Structure formats: structure tokens, C-alpha cells
């Protein structure tokens, strides 16, 4: 049994077609800003992609759409790799002398909504900045495709949204086809983007800044920090917009369905939403209080504003900084670190462990203590009144352990870069959780301190975190390549 080649090639061609079309926008931007080399880079790449996409689509028009688990993982993986590689072309061809590794890093950081940089932001052509933001935005949408459409197919056959990965609210009665679900998500995503743009335009920052930051914040990638302008010196209004839309991008998109369908009860009862908001609130208040008492802030409101913005930034895995977090008391830094591990909600553009898994994690611990006391008791884990099946609990347990194992292994590999401990530990976490900002030497999300090896491995980590590791790991398994061998 081999792969369904037709399906794979067809999917790739569709994806490339979209990417080519997406490249036309920065091309226009390059022309507008008279960045000719960049314009021709985009033109060249876009033409190739569109041509390839259209011709291949014609050839492979008639192919079955039945997708098996094996193809699913492979398709997910290969699409992302190709998309990222094609996305490096504009950087490489723009004539600015960027190296291949640097371009790959930028592209992967863009598509995985990490928001890390190796190239100097201030000297990058505007078109490339725009392209990176577009990558962020499309990458965010790509996550939604993955989690809403593909993962359920890989995990469980059928309509159940409570897939092996992320147990969530059920959708059975809401939409009949997977396609519908995806379409509604994109519509909401686009609507939110337009809304944020409209809110940002009159705020006093330049339209270009507004555009690229809208694309980056709604996809929880980060904030594009030209000359440290936006994040450090922007008005409270702008910071508030960034904060609010980071939260919006990091909430489970299922919640938006419920709002769309008018089912407010389900929204209020959603345990993941409530936990996530509670985590953000408590962390903000905690950090604000510590900051205020540490003397670095004059008023509690100032402390609260910065604390909230920073908390949301890390909690949604966006990763922008509004102040020098290295100078914060280490208890505040610890809270931020924890937020990095917890991550955003499932089925959103955020990354890391995901709140719903953390909820199950806690319930598993408490059940563990209970079962030590009453070893023969039967006590399932309940989420919103419904029990979590043993298979799901087991799957989540494995995911969490795999996450930590991967993280620890990656720390060892990244330590070959010989940065100090805090930089290595936080940097690895930052890329793995698609946050982008670490501590130590990485507080400004500038990864140029790493050698090529470090940059390549970081790119792998970003991809692994984004694809929730399995898509990468199954490729290492022998039984993946040869189905006769289990």
C-alpha cells in the first residue's frame, strides 16, 4: 500500500496556487515603495507558483478525495514544508544578500506564527515586512484548517470534534459538513482582521504599520517593532487593540460558532474559555501587584496596563514585549514562563500545550491523588459534566509527555550553541511554543545570535510546535513508510 500520490500532488498544487496569489500583494507593495529588486523577486516567485498550481491542478483534476491517516500526516507535513520553502524565495531573491538559512528561518517563523526574527527589521524592505505579516496571517488561518479539518480526520473518523487531540465542545448538531465548519472559521477570521484594521487606522500610527500589525496580532504572531516604535512607545489605545485582538485570536474558534449560532449558554459554560480568561486575569493582577511593590512603577494602573499587555502577549503565544522583561522581578518572569507553557486555547491560532490539555492535566493529577487513597474507586475525569474517555485521557497524557520530552531534548541540542542557560532554556521554549520572545539574550526576539545550526534547528522546532509534533515524529517511524511493517 503506497501513498495516494495524486491527492498529495493535487493538494500541494492548490496550496501553491494560493501562496502565489498571496505573493501578488507584497509585489504591489514593493512597486508602491519603489523597491524594485524585491518586486521582481515576488513577481518571479508568484508566477512560478501560479503556473505550477494551475497546470498541475488541470492534470490531477480527477482524483479521489479519500484521505487516510497516513496521507493525512504526510500531506500536512509536506504542505507546510513546501509552503515555507517557497516562502523563502522572496527573501533570498530580493537582492539584500540574505543567506539561505536566514531566509528559511524568517519564512518558517512567519508561517508558524512565531514572530521571531533573524534579519534586521529596520533594514528590511517594506514589501518583505508585508510578506512576513501575510505569512503570519495565512499561517494562522492554516492552523485553523489543520485543527478543524485535518486533525479530526487523522484522529477520529467522522464528525466528532472531540478528536483524539483536543476535546472540545461538540458540533454535531451545528454544521453538517466539515467544509462548512472551515468556511465559517475563515469568515470569522477575516471579519476580525478587517475589524482590527478599521480600529487601528485612525489611531495615529501609519497605515502600513496598522496593516502589518493587524495581520500579525490577529494571528498571535507578535508585533512588528520598527525601531522599537510600536511596542514600546505606542499609545494605550493601540496597546489595548493589540491586547484585545491577541485574545480574540487565541480563543477557541468554536466559541465564535456558538456566538454566531446564538448559543450564549454554551459560550458561558465553556470551561476552556473560562479557565483561559481566569489564567490571564490572575496572572495580570499578580504581575501588576509584584511590579508595583517592587518599586519600578509609580501607579498601580500603570503597572496593571503593562502587566495585562505582557500577560496577554505571552498567554496567547503572540510574544511581543512592551517593556524590558529582563529587568522584571524573577517572580514575574516565572509567571510569564508558565504562561508560555500553558499556551492558548485549542482550535485557535495560538500554540503550546493548550489550555484544555492543561485542564485535563490538573484533573489527572487530582485523580491520581484520589486513587492513591481509594485504589479501587472508579472515577473518570469530567469536563463540563461529560466524562473524558480513557482513550482521550491517554492521548492527552502522551501528548504532554511527548511535549516535555521534545522540549528537554531540544534544550540539549540547542545548548550546543553555547549561549547561557536562561537564553537556551527560554529560547527553546519560545520557538517550540510559537511565542518568539524569550529571556536573557532573546528578549527582543532576535535570533541572529545563533549559528546556522541553531537557526535550522529552531526552524524545525517552530514547525514541530505548530504541527503538534506528531506530523514530524510519525515520519521517523518505520511503520509509516512501509505499511507491511508495523
Amino acid at each position, binding site marked *: 500500500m503506497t501513498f495516494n500520490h495524486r491527492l498529495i500532488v493535487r493538494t500541494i498544487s492548490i496550496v501553491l496556487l494560493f501562496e502565489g496569489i498571496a505573493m501578488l500583494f507584497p509585489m504591489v507593495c514593493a512597486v508602491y515603495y519603489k523597491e524594485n529588486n524585491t518586486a521582481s523577486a515576488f513577481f518571479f516567485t508568484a508566477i512560478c507558483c501560479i503556473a505550477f498550481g494551475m497546470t498541475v491542478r488541470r492534470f490531477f483534476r480527477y482524483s479521489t478525495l479519500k484521505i487516510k*491517516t497516513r496521507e493525512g500526516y504526510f500531506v500536512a507535513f509536506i504542505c507546510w514544508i513546501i509552503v515555507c520553502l517557497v516562502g523563502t524565495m522572496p527573501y533570498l531573491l530580493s537582492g539584500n544578500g540574505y543567506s539561505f538559512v536566514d531566509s528559511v528561518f524568517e519564512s518558517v517563523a512567519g508561517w508558524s506564527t512565531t514572530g521571531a526574527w533573524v534579519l534586521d527589521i529596520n533594514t528590511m524592505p517594506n514589501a518583505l515586512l508585508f510578506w512576513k505579516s501575510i505569512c503570519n496571517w495565512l499561517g494562522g488561518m492554516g492552523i485553523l484548517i489543520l485543527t478543524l479539518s485535518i486533525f479530526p480526520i487523522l484522529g477520529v473518523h467522522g464528525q466528532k470534534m472531540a478528536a483524539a487531540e483536543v476535546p472540545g465542545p461538540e458540533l454535531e448538531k451545528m454544521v453538517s459538513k466539515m467544509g462548512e465548519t472551515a468556511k465559517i472559521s475563515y469568515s470569522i477570521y477575516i471579519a476580525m482582521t478587517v475589524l482590527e484594521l478599521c480600529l487601528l487606522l485612525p489611531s495615529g500610527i501609519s497605515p502600513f504599520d496598522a496593516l502589518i500589525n493587524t495581520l500579525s496580532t490577529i494571528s498571535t504572531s507578535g508585533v512588528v517593532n520598527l525601531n522599537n516604535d510600536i511596542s514600546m512607545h505606542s499609545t494605550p489605545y493601540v496597546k489595548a487593540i493589540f491586547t484585545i485582538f491577541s485574545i480574540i485570536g487565541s480563543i477557541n474558534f468554536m466559541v465564535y460558532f456558538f456566538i454566531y449560532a446564538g448559543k450564549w449558554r454554551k459560550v458561558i459554560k465553556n470551561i476552556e474559555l473560562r479557565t483561559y480568561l481566569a489564567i490571564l486575569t490572575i496572572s495580570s493582577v499578580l504581575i501588576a501587584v509584584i511590579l508595583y511593590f517592587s518599586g519600578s512603577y509609580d501607579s498601580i494602573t500603570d503597572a496593571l496596563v503593562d502587566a495585562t499587555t505582557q500577560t496577554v502577549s505571552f498567554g496567547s503565544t503572540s510574544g511581543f514585549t512592551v517593556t524590558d522583561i529582563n529587568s522584571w522581578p*524573577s517572580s514575574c518572569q516565572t509567571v510569564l514562563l508558565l504562561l508560555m507553557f500553558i499556551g492558548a486555547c485549542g482550535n485557535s491560532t495560538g500554540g503550546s500545550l493548550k489550555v484544555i490539555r492543561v485542564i485535563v*492535566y490538573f484533573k489527572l493529577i487530582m485523580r491520581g491523588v484520589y486513587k492513591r*487513597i*481509594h485504589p479501587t474507586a472508579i472515577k473518570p475525569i469530567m469536563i463540563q459534566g461529560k466524562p473524558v474517555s480513557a482513550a482521550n485521557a491517554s*492521548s492527552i497524557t*502522551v501528548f504532554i509527555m511527548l511535549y516535555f520530552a521534545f522540549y528537554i531534548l531540544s534544550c540539549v541540542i540547542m545548548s550546543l550553541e553555547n549561549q547561557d542557560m536562561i537564553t537556551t532554556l527560554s529560547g527553546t521554549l519560545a520557538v517550540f511554543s510559537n511565542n518568539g520572545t524569550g529571556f536573557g539574550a532573546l528578549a527582543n526576539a532576535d535570533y541572529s545570535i545563533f549559528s546556522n545550526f541553531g537557526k535550522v534547528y529552531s526552524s524545525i522546532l517552530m514547525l514541530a510546535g505548530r504541527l503538534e509534533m506528531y506530523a514530524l515524529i510519525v515520519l521517523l517511524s518505520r511503520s509509516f513508510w512501509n505499511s507491511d511493517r508495523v
Partner: protein
Amino acid sequence: MTVNFNGVIRIMGILLLVLGACLIPSLLVAFIYAETLSIKAFLFTILPCIVIGAVLKKVFRPSLIKLKARDGFLIVSLSWLVASIIGALPFVISGAIPNYIDAFFETCSGFSTTGSSILTDVESLPKSMLFWRSFTHWLGGMGIIVFAMALLPSIGVGGQIIASAETPGPTLSKITPRFADTARNLYLVYILFTVIETILLLFGGMNLFDSLIHTFGSVGTGGFSSYADSVAHFSSPYIQWVIIIFMTMCGINFNLYFILARKGIKAMLKDSELRLYLLIIFSVTALISINLMTAGGYDSISQGIRDSAFQVTSMITTTGYATADYELWPTFSKMLIFILLLTGACSSSTGGGVKVIRILIALKLVRRGVSLKLHPNRIASVTLGGKGVPQEVSTNIANFIFLYIFVFFVGGFIISFNGYDIVTSFSAVLTCLGNTGPGFNLVGPVLNFSIFSGFSKLVLSFLMIAGRLELFTFFMLFSRHYWNSNKA
């Protein structure tokens, strides 16, 4: 059906007797070195212990109701707390460590075989105090309860139940039918190792006092030394290799020594945990050696290997001795050492940490989980050495790892209020939880824990005991289900 308080208090009485007896060797040392303050301190502690202990044992008769698992947890947790509280008294009374919280920290560090110290000047302490400090390692290594069990089988049927709350790691097989016999056998092996290592160290040129101190530290995998620079004080390669070997041996599952005696070395080497343990030691030693030679500024291969092997075995067995300041090593080596802090030694050994067998089973669970993603309808079970691992055990292991991570983060958060950097705070917590001793940055191998506030020292002390008792035994006491079984 609640906790059997009578039984618990009776055992506390027995414990006090045992503690009092254990203080006697230190008293003798005080006599030998004519340290009058210490003699007084020990006498003031020993006499009340023995008296109160005897009274409690008499007054609380062995009840007809048998001790249950639930009582076991309370007994063990309480024993360790009481032992640490009382064990700190000699330090305070003699003025060696005047602050009680400091003394409590040091004693917890001793009994839990952690080896973290708040002392800024170790060598100024009276010899008998240093002896008591290290003797607590020896007692705590094999387990206070196990010690009591071996001496006083009259505690009865509850022995196995209680001791299983204290034994590190999931026990998958029994060695002897009666636990009291197992306890006695374990202690025989333990005493044998102690004697042999002391003799070997004497041959190396150490005086008797130093030999004993460092033997206690290595067989108990504790890490207290009589010198401020730990084992680096002894530059003799022979001494360092002896300590390396004994640390490694005491990090192995002691039950395997019985298998060695009965069935030979091949049967012993079949144990999966042992194989992973040795694999980790050899590979990490090799990696660090190479790293030291290429990037660490080491010139001689033999010293590179020796320092690497020493630090690796010291950290994986959670001993905590140091022959070099690894803070100066390249980040790659430091990260590997950080990993070893997490891993820990084998189950049923004197080491701490998460334990190799749990790591092994967790890895197998992960591998099975990945395979299930590809083949969702597959039936796969986790096997260890050919035998299947019951679902219960797998679940417990996963729960343990999760709780460990949780305690690590919460502990790190609490300690971070001292204001020191994240690496210091978190490595301090990790090293106490895993009972190793040294951490990184401000709690590196040549520094100490005196920088923390009293509250933090208390928290760290509790973490040390919690880690030694494998978390659940300790944290269970915080659950309302424990105290009132009618409330399900």
C-alpha cells in the same frame, strides 16, 4: 474508618527510640574529639528522645486493628518530619548552626540525602556535628522506616504497607515473603558497601574520619563533605574513582544484588532499568568528556573523563559531590547535567529523582502513543523485560511525572520571590525535589543555600522530604479525602 491514631503514635514512640539510639555514635565522636558543647547537645537530645519514646511505646499498646495503607502514609510522612525536627536540635543547642530554620534545612537535607547546605564555612563545624550531619545521610539513604523494620520486626504485619510508602519507585517484584527479612537483607548489603568503601578510602590515604564522612555521603547518595570544596579537596584519582564506583553501585536497584547473588551477573544485567541507567551514564560521560576536551579547555584526556564520569554519576545518583565547578563548563555539558538532575537513579536504591524506571516506562508509553496515532485500531501494550506493565502502574507513573512537574513549577514560583534569577530559583527547587544537592548559577556546586530567606528554606526543606517520599505520600495528607473516608 479513619486513621488509626493509636497505632501511629505508638510507631512514633518507637521512632524516637531509634532516633535516640542513632545519635549515640555522634555522641561517641564528640567524646573522642572532646567537644564539650556537642556532648551536651547530644545528651540533651538523646535522653528526652529515649524517655518519651519508651513512654509512648508503653502507653499505646499494639491495637487489635491492623494498620492500613492509609496509616502508612501518615506514619512515614510524620516520621520523616519528626526525625528532621529532632535531628536539628543538636546543631542548635551546641551553637554550630544557631538559627533553627537553618538547622532544620540542614537536617532535612541530611535525612533526605539531598546534600544542599546553608553552611558558608563547613570546616569550622565541630567534628561530631559534621559526623551527625553525614550520619543522617546514611540513615536516610536506605530509609528510616526500613531501618526500624529491620531492627524491630515487632512492628508487625503493617511493615510492608508502611515501607512501601517509603520505598522509592514502583516495586514490581518481591524478594522475600516477609518484608522484615527484605529489610534486613537490604541493610546487610548496605552495611557491607559502607564497610568496604571505608576501607578502600582508607587505603587511598584518607583519615578515618574523612573516610566515614565520604562513605556515608556516597552510599547514601547524599553529598555532604567535611570540606568546602567537596571531593575536589582530594586530588587523588584513586579516591575519586572509588567514590564514582560506589555512587554508581548505590544508585542501582538493591534488589538486583540479590539476583546477582542467586543467579549471577547475566540475570542481573537483564534488568531493563539497569541497562538504561548504565547506558545513560556511559553515553553522557562520553558526550561531556568530548565537549570538555573540545570546548571546555581541558587538556588531559584522563582528567576530562574522570571529571566527566564523576559529575555524571554524582548527578544521576543524586549524590551531589563535585570534583570540578561545572558552572565553568560549556553550556552543552551543563544542559546534560540539568537533564541528569531530572532523571534520577534506579528505583529501590538510595538515589532520588524521578527514577530511571519511570523514565523508561514513560518513553515506552510515548512510543506506543505515537504508534497508535498511525494505527488507531492496534492493540499494543507496554512491556518491561518481557512482562506486561499493568495499566495501573502506567497511570501511576504518568500521574507521578505530572505531579512532579507541577510541584517543580509551583516551587520555582515560590522561591523566585527571593529575587534571584530564574535559573537559580528553578534549579534550587529541582535539586531539592530530586534530592541531589547542587544546582546552577547562585546555587552552583561551589556555593550554598544561605542566600535564601527563611521561608524559602522551609519550603525547600519540605520539597526535599516530599521528593524523598515520592510526592504522593506527602501530598496525600493535604487531601480532604484522606482524613475523612466518608467523604468520597
